[in-house]
């Protein structure tokens, strides 16, 4: 095991963010090294809040967010960040090149250097030949590339990309994935938020799974899968034939306990030791016995999110 200290690019220390009575992020602590890190989670999990805090666009209500030991909220830290937000509505009357040049001036470059940097960034994202068209006529993919170009302008240490692959065609998607890999190979830290775990898996094994404003799990996808295999989980199953379903499920080895709540006449709550195996067994039982099931819901929100992503789908299991 190496004793070399890994440099942390982005660090969250006990960070919470409140929006009035609503909690966006709840006591999150995480440190990101160089490389590609995926950020996944269902809608409302706190991904946008996490990214905005990392990009210094939000100030934490509690705790501290630092970029290379500088508070993310301070403008100096922003010289180390490239942020590619999910929104793609920028100045429709401008050409892509003018937009990126304007952003380069905002970084603080003098005119000639700003133009040079903008042209280089557009070249890198494959927009050089199309950048002189007005943004209004851009496709979703072209907008994504232009957004990425403005994030790459100042060669930041940390690139924060919110759904960067959305709307890009398969060929373009492959180009973007190659670009992300090359940026990571240069020693940059890429924090990529995506709904599509499959795409992220092509880029990295390191993911952070967010659920209900908390980090549900983090690490390599393999490790998380290992953990989830052995994570006990409570699951609610609704059926119009509750008793028959309960009798059938008692044959299942993965179930530790089974409860028939009095206040929910159509529901039963099972505690399973190995959820993945249980889901496979459940599918077989249901098909074999022709059991009607109207609802299937893990009661542990963190596990819910993890399962949602690891077993496929959008996180809404």
């Amino acid at each position, binding site marked *: 095991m190496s004793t070399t200290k890994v440099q942390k690019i982005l660090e969250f220390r006990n960070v919470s963010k409140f*929006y009035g009575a609503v909690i*966006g992020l709840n006591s999150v602590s995480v440190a990101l090294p160089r490389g590609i890190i995926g950020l996944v989670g269902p809608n409302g999990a706190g991904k*946008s*809040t996490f990214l*905005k805090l990392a*990009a*210094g*666009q*939000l*100030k934490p209500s509690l705790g501290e967010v630092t970029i290379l030991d500088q508070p993310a909220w301070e*403008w*100096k830290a*922003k*010289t180390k*960040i*490239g*942020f590619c*937000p999910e*929104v793609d*509505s*920028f*100045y429709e*009357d*401008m050409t892509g090149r*003018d937009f990126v040049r*304007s*952003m380069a*001036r*905002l*970084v*603080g*470059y*003098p005119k000639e*250097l700003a133009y040079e*940097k903008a042209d280089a960034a557009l070249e*890198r994202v494959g927009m050089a030949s199309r950048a002189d068209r007005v943004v209004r006529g851009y496709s979703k993919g072209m907008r994504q590339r232009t957004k990425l170009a*403005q*994030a790459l302008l*100042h*060669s*930041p240490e940390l690139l924060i990309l919110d759904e960067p692959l959305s709307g890009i065609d398969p060929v373009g998607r492959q180009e973007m994935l190659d670009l992300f890999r*090359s*940026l990571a*190979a*240069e020693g940059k830290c890429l924090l990529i938020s995506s709904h599509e775990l499959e795409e992220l898996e092509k880029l990295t094994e390191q993911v952070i799974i967010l659920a209900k404003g908390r980090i549900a799990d983090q690490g390599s996808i393999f490790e998380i899968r290992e953990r989830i295999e052995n994570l006990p989980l409570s699951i609610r199953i609704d059926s119009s034939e509750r008793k028959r379903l309960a009798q059938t499920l008692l044959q299942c080895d993965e179930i530790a306990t089974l409860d028939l709540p009095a206040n929910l006449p159509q529901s039963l709550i099972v505690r399973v030791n190995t959820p993945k195996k249980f889901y496979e067994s459940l599918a077989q039982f249901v098909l074999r016995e022709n059991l009607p099931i109207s609802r299937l819901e893990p009661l542990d929100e963190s596990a819910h999110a993890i399962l949602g992503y690891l077993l496929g789908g959008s996180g809404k299991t």
Partner: protein
Amino acid sequence: MAEAHLTGFLGYREDTSRRSGSWRGIVAVARASLRMVFRRKMFWALYAFSLLIFLFYLFGQYLTVYIENRVSEAMVRQGGVFGRMFNPQELSKVLTSSLHMNGSADTYGDFIWTEGYIVIVIMALVGSLLIGNDFQHNSLPFYLSKPIGKFHYLLGKALAAGGITAIMTLIPCLCLFLEYGFIEDWSYYWTEWRLFLGVVGYGSLVVVTLSSMILAVSAWLRRTGPVILVWISLFVLSRFIQRWLVDGLGLSPSWRLIDTWNNLYLTAMWLFDYDHAKIRPTNQAQPPYGQAVVVVSLTILVCILSLRNRVRAVEVVR
């Protein structure tokens, strides 16, 4: 190995380029905003009207001085097929007494007042372009992901709005002041220093007040249509209402304080050290200068606080 080769090939290294501080971001924000405004033909069409007013005053002052100093004949023949004779002293009287094109406080006060009609329309149109669009399309993250803060962003937008106002009010008014001293008597520059202060004060007041008002209104309403409606109400409807209340119903002149443009004019006249009793039209009672100054100051303060809250509200995730 392959990765190292790829990195070298791509030539992407740590950025050590020359960069200025975040204050330069203010100018960059203003520049980007002005570029968007200057792309609009409508802006240039309206700006042409503003220039016409300026040229009217510019040549009006020139004509006044010319007639007073150079025309000695009792009657002058005017051009045209049939020709007409007119008395230059009568023309001079019209230029100085009615049109006030004689380098006085009235000249500069009237000029900015008249320009106000165009300025109000232009500001209504560009307000949503300058800041409304950023809120409507949620473009703020692009600005704020760069090494600038919300403070720099707002100052940049204010600089753009102020620049547009200044090229129609403060700058041409200063040109008129310089012109009059140049063609009349150079001692005018130092003997009438109070006028100079008044011009700078009135122009700056208009720039600061209108910029903060249009930014505050656009940040809240976002879309061009509502911005124009509210803006016109603030400057046109309020004038009709104050006239109706004070001149029609005979209420206190303090009701005129609901008219922002009138407040700016009164504050400017105070800066010009102008006799309150001579404010035209003399048959319309005006509130004291002090009240107008207080209302203008409060207007600016409210706009700045409102903008501060609006930009802070961007934090809320929808």
